[in-house]
């Protein structure tokens, strides 16, 4: 019982794109692995696991709707990412903390 081939397929708005991030092992950062389509968070997680984690080597998965990601523009590269060596107070080692106090 095939659906009429001429009917518009709404799949593109119903199955939006999600970005997948995987963590290879405990303590490692999550890295961008690629994308999957899914209609909702549960299937996005399952699809991400089936596509990017089925061979093991993944202990944790994040999925994020692609539309939620805000990215810097390539043109901003210089000022946006400059380590600003002339401003040491951004770096943690500038601050002395009392012994025994956990910072975070």
């Amino acid at each position, binding site marked *: *019982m*095939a*659906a009429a*081939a001429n*009917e518009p*397929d*709404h*799949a*593109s*708005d*119903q*199955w939006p*794109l999600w970005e997948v991030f995987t963590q290879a092992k405990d303590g490692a950062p999550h890295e961008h692995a*690629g*994308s*999957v*389509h899914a*209609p*909702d*968070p*549960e*299937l996005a*997680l399952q699809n991400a696991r089936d*596509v990017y984690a089925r061979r093991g080597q993944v202990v944790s998965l994040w999925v994020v709707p692609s539309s939620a990601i805000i*990215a810097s*523009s*390539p043109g901003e590269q210089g000022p946006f990412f400059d380590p600003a060596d002339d401003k040491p107070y951004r770096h943690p080692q500038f601050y002395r903390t009392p012994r025994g106090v956990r910072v975070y």
Partner: protein
Amino acid sequence: MSAPSLPPEDAAHAAAFDARIDAGETIEPKDWMPERYRHQLVRMMSQHAHSEIVGMLPEGNWITRAPSLRRKMCLLAKVQDEAGHGLYIYCATETLGVGREELIDQLLSGKAKYSSIFNYPTLTWADIGIIGWFVDGAAIVNQTVLAKASYGPYARAMVRICKEENFHKRQGYEIVATLAAGTPAQRAMVQDAVNRWWWPTLMMFGPSDANSPNSGDLLRWRVKRFSNDELRQRFVDLTVAQAQAVSLTLPDPKLRYDAETGHWAYGDIDWAEFKRVINGNGPCNRERLAARRAAHDQGAWVRDAAGAYAEKQRRRGTAPAA
């Protein structure tokens, strides 16, 4: 889209872009790129993705008849990997502003091309071994190079694919070696498969570059790195030794080692056959597309259902449980 002379900002952008390419830099989705670069990439990447998806069919044809549980699982895993590869590349293509639905439409309507090799039928179990050995072998020759392509998302997808592809080729060759060392019936089966798949595999690399209209751009922009002929020669050189190792004959009386060049010279490819197959008149073109169309059409109600459920959950304010 060819502009005889670009407006000043575009000309500057184009020059900067070429400089980045020459410097070996990676182009990312939001970077400025010539429209022609974007267009060529979409064409090349989508063709590649379509090939992976259509390629599931000739091999999938033997999953239910695989002759041992181990082979059954290996074949199922391999075909599943191909679905995954198609998915990686469709997703990478989407970064260039084309949705997956549009790409699928192009395939199903016959507008888009896919690799000629998948228009041939798998007639025996030996074909499965040969596809892994020849076809994945040819793909690896192509793809290892693509892992350094100038477009970031494509290159990264290719790195993933290459890791998985090596296991496919080894599996295929293992099947071939097992058959070649097996019963007389098995040996005949695999030699027959070699005879049917050798020339179509050589055609996979595409026509000589003189006859390949898109090669120039792709080479200039570091999307292709080597010519079709160079890659084809690399594949022949690798494969002859492998065939000798299992005592299989390649169906080319003109095949001979040229000590001067260090390469294996081979006979003439029937480019008329290639043209026929590429233009829709191969042995199974219609069946392949019909199968994909059926899956897509019959799946519409399923996709719609999942979309409707998600919409209901949103309206109720309950995200579907994770």
